């Protein structure tokens, strides 16, 4: 009980300092521009989208704006978290922290949650304000299930990125290595994943010359289970009208959500418990 109170007080202290840090001050305009901004654009009845994309309700707006969440909020987690362990380790501050009478697991969680929530809270607030934008622009109230799924899975996505970044930060011997790992991970899942999928598909004999081919789409959906961004989009895609839903079995998506939540956090905490100054 005492430890839990210490954990909560520590988390609140860390959140206060992180949420007003220069990095977050730079990030806020980007988040505003990317999340409510994209929702504003997609929910505008006069918007014409390229190709065959059509807005069929609030869930479609949320699904389309997820691309902008992937481009801004996940990068925010990388930028906030890349030095949260490696810097104090290099300066010697971590030695003082590890010498304090607090359970290592709780201390590890406070570092992880500090990074995660400092981005996830503003993002969630912007998403909630975006729901009001949808209501204002389209004249429809997004369903509670859709809204909770959108906000919740975005928060989980940021937790996955935060745990990956904390693993990198706890491994890094210098700040450069940590930020490189974080940005490289972000680039792999955000910008390069389609290329990786195409290469693997070709190697496995799946025709990747036509990305609209149902066999390739099915393969791609399965490959997406191994990417946090892919899982994020599959979950949101599941809320779309029947015709646009993914073909991959729901159970695999649920399993991927659990796996991406449990495995990186467990590995990070294991590393943190054995961390040496």
């Amino acid at each position, binding site marked *: 009980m005492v430890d839990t109170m210490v954990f909560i007080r520590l988390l609140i*202290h860390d959140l206060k*300092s992180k949420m007003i840090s220069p990095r977050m001050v730079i990030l806020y305009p980007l988040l505003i521009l990317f999340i409510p901004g994209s929702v504003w654009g997609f929910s505008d009845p006069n918007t014409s989208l390229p190709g065959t994309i059509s807005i069929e309700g609030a869930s479609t707006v949320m699904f389309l704006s997820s691309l902008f969440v992937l481009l801004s909020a996940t990068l925010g987690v990388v930028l906030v978290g890349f030095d949260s362990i490696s*810097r104090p380790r290099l*300066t010697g501050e971590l*030695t*003082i922290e590890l010498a304090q009478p*607090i*359970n290592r697991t709780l201390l590890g969680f406070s570092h992880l949650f500090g990074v995660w929530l400092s981005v996830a809270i503003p993002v969630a607030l912007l998403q909630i304000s975006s729901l009001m934008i949808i209501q204002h622009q389209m004249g429809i109230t997004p369903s509670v299930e859709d809204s909770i799924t959108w906000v919740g899975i975005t928060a989980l996505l940021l937790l996955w990125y935060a745990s990956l970044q904390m693993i990198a930060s706890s491994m890094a011997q210098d700040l450069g290595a940590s930020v490189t790992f974080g940005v490289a991970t972000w680039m792999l899942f955000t910008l390069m994943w389609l290329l990786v999928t195409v290469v693997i598909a070709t190697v496995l004999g799946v025709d990747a010359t036509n990305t609209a081919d149902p066999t390739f789409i099915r393969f791609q959906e399965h490959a997406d289970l191994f990417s946090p961004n892919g899982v994020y989009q599959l979950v949101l895609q599941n809320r779309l009208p029947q015709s646009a839903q993914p073909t991959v079995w729901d159970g695999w998506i649920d399993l991927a959500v659990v796996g991406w939540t449990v495995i990186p956090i467990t590995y990070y905490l294991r590393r943190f418990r054995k961390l040496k100054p």
Partner: protein
Amino acid sequence: MEVLVELENARYLHPIPRAIIAAAKRRKQPIPKRGIIEASLRIESGSIIGLVGPNGAGKSTLMSIMAGILPLQRGIIKSNGKHVLSEQDRVHLRKRIGLMPERVAWSGPGNPLDVIRRLCIIRGQDAKNAEEILQRVGLSSRSRDRLSSLSQGMRQRLSLGAALIGNPDILLLDEPMNGLDPVAQSAFRKMIQEMANRGTAIVVSSHQLNELERFVEGVAIMNQGKIVTQGSFTSVEHDLGVGQRLMVSGIGPSPASMISENPLITVKELDEEGDWCLRLTRHDQTWSQDLRAALIERINVGSTKVASLERVPPDLEEILRTATGISEGIDLQGEE
């Protein structure tokens, strides 16, 4: 005095990089060991122990073990007589210990007040105590300055402040006087003495041996991962055989050659006031009162007379040299 923490045959070896192991094997040399090979130490309430040793002797590693940061690979650690085994035991141990590591390069967007408040929260203390801590270490006027603007001395004070949170029973201070100005050093010594008088045990590691001598009561000498000797200055002098020196001066012809005839005594002529001044070192035993009386009788022949005779206490530097075998011509280019 109550034994607060006790280490018995403690061992913690740092992992050696594969490249170094491979190089050692290539040269058919033994694989180097870094860390603590074997250390036993008792920390009693109110004691001030100086932890001294050459670079790489394992002082900081030993402090990390005592602070409950590094787990033991062998041996035992007891806190108030109870074995420290689990993480929960280490948490209890850390509650009683305040650690000031060597040269913390405080940085980041925060300020000293934020740092101490955060540590107060972790220690389960009221964050309001932070200002009092900063006042205690003379940082209250800089409490809201950016960490990056602090000088090395100010950063040392902040690290000391961090160690003082929660009034720990044991203070582990690694090179605490690095970067402190003379006034701050004096205030630091006074504070340490006051804390020891109140029952806090203090372990200070330092290379500034002349400074250390001014306030420590006993020493533990480390070399190559081992505690070579420990105890009060007198007992360490006795163990190392460095307490057998006399300074003799007088008038008339110098008795140096006559005394040198005894192979058990080394004679060194010193350039002091008076006709002659000699430093005599006995290699077999200490200069007892009888031996000193016999020496005076032997010297006082003819016009040669002893004017003064006093025992020369060894300084900490000499103790360290004797204990570790480091000669004056230390090879700075060699591997630490």
